[in-house]
């Protein structure tokens, strides 16, 4: 097996990078892929909590690179998806205790066993970011339709290109269709035009993400969740399947009749494709 390493990055913190990592990783595993997600946010780990695996951590990333355990001992099997594993970040160590070379070596070894190695990158563009992108062949840049997040995403895309990661695609998270319709929020076309990269997902803002995170169950398991459905489509696109891009502004029902249709299970075909 020769898998690929994908880094999830954003520049700005708090845009939903870790949530996206958990959901894309889970959705890829539900497509019968062997997937490992690595939390590289040393000192501020959260991927374990989002995936509901915080009580199963015995060994972490730093234990692996410092050879206090074998890789297999640090792999935490997911509760739900059979072939999904987590390597947690160390919570009580310094960010500098893992080098780029060590992470590259780990990812190359994991690529021999897994279809996808997904690296959850820390926020910012410091050493932790440089370590995380060192091992990746592809990057998914998570942003929200907000000024600061887009600006930081642009900076990160520039750095990814400088480090010769040419395949950087965008996940635009937390799109609020009502605000976009009123002209109060940037829409997906604005963001894509300014950043000049391809999209791999347009994820609507969704309260169900909060409840799923509280429960430690990724939102892709919730078939009623609009964001969960989009993360499933993101995984399919990463996996090479052609799935047309669906703008949440067109997907979400606006009129009472649309809402009745949705409740009755009569779906109107989404009309906005990229």
């Amino acid at each position, binding site marked *: 097996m020769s898998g690929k390493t994908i880094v999830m990055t954003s520049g700005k913190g708090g845009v939903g990078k870790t949530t996206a990592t958990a959901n894309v990783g889970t959705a890829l595993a539900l497509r019968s892929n062997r997937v490992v997600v690595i939390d590289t946010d040393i000192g501020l780990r959260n991927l374990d909590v989002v995936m509901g695996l915080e009580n199963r951590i015995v060994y972490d990333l730093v234990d692996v690179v410092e050879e206090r355990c074998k890789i297999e001992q640090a792999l935490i099997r997911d509760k739900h998806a059979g072939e999904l594993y987590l390597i947690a970040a160390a919570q009580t160590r310094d960010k500098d205790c893992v080098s780029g070379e060590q992470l590259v070596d780990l990812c190359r070894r994991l690529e021999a066993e897994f279809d996808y190695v997904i690296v959850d990158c820390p926020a910012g563009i410091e050493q932790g970011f440089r370590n995380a992108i060192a091992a990746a062949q592809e990057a998914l840049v998570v942003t929200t339709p907000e000024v600061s997040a887009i*600006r930081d995403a*642009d900076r990160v895309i520039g750095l990814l290109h400088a480090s010769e990661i040419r395949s950087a695609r965008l996940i635009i998270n937390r799109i609020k269709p009502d605000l*976009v*319709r*009123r002209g109060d929020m940037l*829409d997906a076309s604005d963001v894509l035009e300014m950043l000049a990269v391809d999209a791999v997902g347009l994820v609507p803002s969704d309260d169900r993400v909060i409840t799923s995170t509280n429960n430690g169950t990724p939102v892709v398991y919730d078939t009623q969740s609009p964001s969960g459905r989009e993360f499933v489509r993101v995984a399919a696109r990463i996996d090479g399947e052609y799935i047309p891009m669906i703008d949440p502004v067109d997907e979400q029902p606006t009129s009472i009749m649309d809402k009745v249709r949705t409740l009755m299970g009569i779906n109107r075909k989404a009309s906005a494709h990229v």
Partner: protein
Amino acid sequence: MFKLFWKDRGLRKGSPRQVARERVESAIRRDRMEVSAPQLSALRDNMLFTIKEHLPVAPEFTEFGLQRDVDGVFLVSRVRLQDIR
């Protein structure tokens, strides 16, 4: 292809979306034009080296840098020549 299918929603003048778009574009333009101090210094030295081949330069009065205004980013230089009277 992308443009053909995308609806132009709410991009009216003065709307929060329009304001946000202009602000992001402005910020990104500046960020992309950022030149590091060593790069700027090397550029200045190269420029002075070339000018000195043609004209006598008084380097202690050389200004060199990036200036930004609403029209964009400009590389601005002011080089004093030696008095040859």
